[in-house]
């Protein structure tokens, strides 16, 4: 018996620390979600993520109607998978948050390297802030501390919520925070209080630097990888005196947002630029060279597959982008046709 294929939208968020992929159905429900480490290899992370997705959905037939890419590797990802929409992560996160909680007024988003604050009113983004100058690196820092203390990062939050009186940690900069933490340990303060103190310091830093001058109004959504940490959620609630909601799929919100943006394109079946899940088997070569067209001597990145240049980018003037990839990310590897995740029992 032939069951009609479900309509699906693929969203991919490739950040510095994590790579997330989701497949949404036509009502924006999550059919499958993948959260994995980028490990400095965005192409590999995307390819393996796609492979994992096909495994997760092995018993279903899904027709991909649209693909969105976001995150710091969004352009690269867009070219590899053939994305229909390539969007910055700030917009993607805002879109996802307002889909999950339509009346959300504030989004706190903390990822591996970046922290964001997004202010929405009536479903429209009215203001945002992203950490600048200093790469706060909250997620990476918590990771590092959990490794140093020998506590699995998953358990970090539970330690924090057990604390009765958080230690005061100097939190202006993670370098100071770490040395202060070590000092507090050396004088005998229990690890629970130190960990919760650290959460307080990070929240204080976020509110004093990033959120300064912005109005934080309830309902507040807290998302990004760090939202998994119950200690951070509790510290935010303490500091703001507002209840903070952590959505179920808090760690893949960027991917959800980009899938929703792809959905909003309302493409007809087969109209997507998606290169099919087979891209996970292709071998991509990337190289760089310096353009000598003018005195800027920009560094240009070139990406090739099967010896054929797929795209080039990185210049200030857009010269290389224009020559062979109009609308970066729209390039197809092969002519369209329906792309489906086939039932593959192995």
């Amino acid at each position, binding site marked *: 018996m032939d069951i009609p294929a479900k309509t699906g939208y693929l969203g991919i968020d490739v950040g510095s620390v994590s790579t997330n992929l989701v497949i949404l159905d036509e009502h924006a429900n999550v059919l499958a979600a993948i959260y994995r480490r980028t490990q400095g290899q965005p192409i590999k992370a995307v390819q393996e993520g796609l492979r994992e997705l096909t495994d997760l959905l092995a018993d279903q037939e899904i027709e991909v109607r649209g693909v969105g890419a976001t995150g710091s590797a969004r352009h690269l990802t867009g070219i590899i998978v053939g994305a229909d929409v390539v969007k*910055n992560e700030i*917009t993607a996160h805002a*879109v996802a948050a307002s889909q999950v909680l339509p009346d959300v007024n504030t989004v706190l988003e903390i990822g591996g390297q970046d922290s964001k604050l997004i202010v929405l009113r009536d479903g429209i983004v*009215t*203001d*945002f802030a*992203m950490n600048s*100058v200093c790469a706060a690196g909250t997620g990476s820092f918590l990771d590092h501390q959990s490794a140093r203390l020998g506590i699995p990062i998953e358990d970090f939050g539970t330690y924090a919520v057990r604390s009765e009186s958080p230690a005061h940690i100097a939190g202006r900069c993670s370098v100071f925070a770490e040395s202060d933490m070590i000092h507090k340990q050396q004088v005998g303060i229990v690890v629970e209080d130190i960990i919760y103190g650290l959460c307080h310091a990070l929240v204080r830093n976020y509110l004093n630097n990033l959120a300064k001058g912005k109005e934080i109004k309830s309902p507040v959504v807290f998302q990004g990888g760090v939202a998994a940490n119950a200690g951070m959620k509790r510290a935010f609630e303490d500091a703001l005196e507002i209840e903070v909601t952590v959505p179920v799929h808090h760690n893949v919100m960027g991917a959800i947002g980009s899938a929703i943006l792809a959905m909003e*394109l309302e493409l007809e079946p087969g109209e997507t630029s998606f290169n099919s899940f087979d891209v996970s088997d292709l071998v991509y070569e990337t190289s760089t060279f310096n353009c000598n067209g003018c005195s*800027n001597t920009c560094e240009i990145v070139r990406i090739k597959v099967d010896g054929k240049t797929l795209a080039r980018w990185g210049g200030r003037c857009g010269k290389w982008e224009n020559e062979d990839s109009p609308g970066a990310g729209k390039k197809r590897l092969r002519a369209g046709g329906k792309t489906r995740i086939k039932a593959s029992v192995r």
Partner: protein
Amino acid sequence: MKVTCPHMGHLHWMLDDLFGRLGVEYVKPPPTTTKTLTIGAKHSPEFACLPLKINIGNFIQGLDMGADTLIMAGGHGPCRFGYYGIVEERILRDLGYDFRFMMLEPFGDGKWAFYKTFETLSPGSLSLRKLWKILKVSFTKGRAFDQIHKRTLQVRAYEVNHGDTTRALREAEKMLTQAFTTEEIEEAGREALALIDNVEQDPERRVLKVGIVGEFFLLLEPFSNFGLEEALGHMGVYIERSVWVTDWIAPGRDNKIYGFHKDIVDGKAAPYLNHNVGGEGRETIGSIVLMAERKFDGIIQLLPFGCMPENIATSIIPKVQRDHDIPVLTLAFDEQTGRAGVITRVEAFLDLLSARRGLSLVGTNA
């Protein structure tokens, strides 16, 4: 005598003309690039602002090309800029360079001191009257350059073929460079503007209207802001900018290129900031109000990291933003700033502006 001077946007077009008329050999430093900044940052105090680091890089490259006389603008007031000439001279001497250093103090500080600087450059036949005449012609040329650049920022948003406006601008610049007398300059200026206006445009395109305000060096020197204006133009954004080089150096309070008299700008800033805080701090606030009243979609403020006057403005902006219901994006730059981060924030900002206008987020920028 070989004179060099730091770059600032298209100031060099005017200097080329001016030094030519004075009969002074002008060593134009190579265009500012990452290399310039690397050299400059290496020899500058870490907490000095980006313009100083770029100046040092320009000077060193100019000196290495054989320049023996350096000219740097002076100034006074709360901004560190007035002090930079002195610091720069010291840094360069400590590096072992031998040169003559000249601080060009603002015209308003006294005609005589101003004239003396030029007299030293071009000894003998230069009378105050003659200098005045020369300055006037060169200045007319500078203003014509400002005018064509201003037009470019508006036309680029509507261009049909990617890059046409920039190509027209290059042609226009060439045309103006060759003009010599005041009449020729005015004529070339008109033709140059026509050249840019003739770029094939799509008048139906729905474009965002964004104002750029902030510290003058960051606004004037495209290298320092990653060519933000051109990038915005290619994303289909109509741009107006609050600071122009000829407005900035012109005596008097009339902003011919920006179009608003300084008193009007200061008046608009007055409810928030009613005194000079140095640099463009007050102008930034006044311009935001003016642009909000003129129904711009949003404002981008550019500043060097650590810039005191602009930081004062930044702390006032949230209130201006609320009162006038206009989104403002603040971007701070130093030698550590990466282009990707800037573009991400700018794209998100344009999405925000599109959403406010009820335009679809899908399709904008990317």
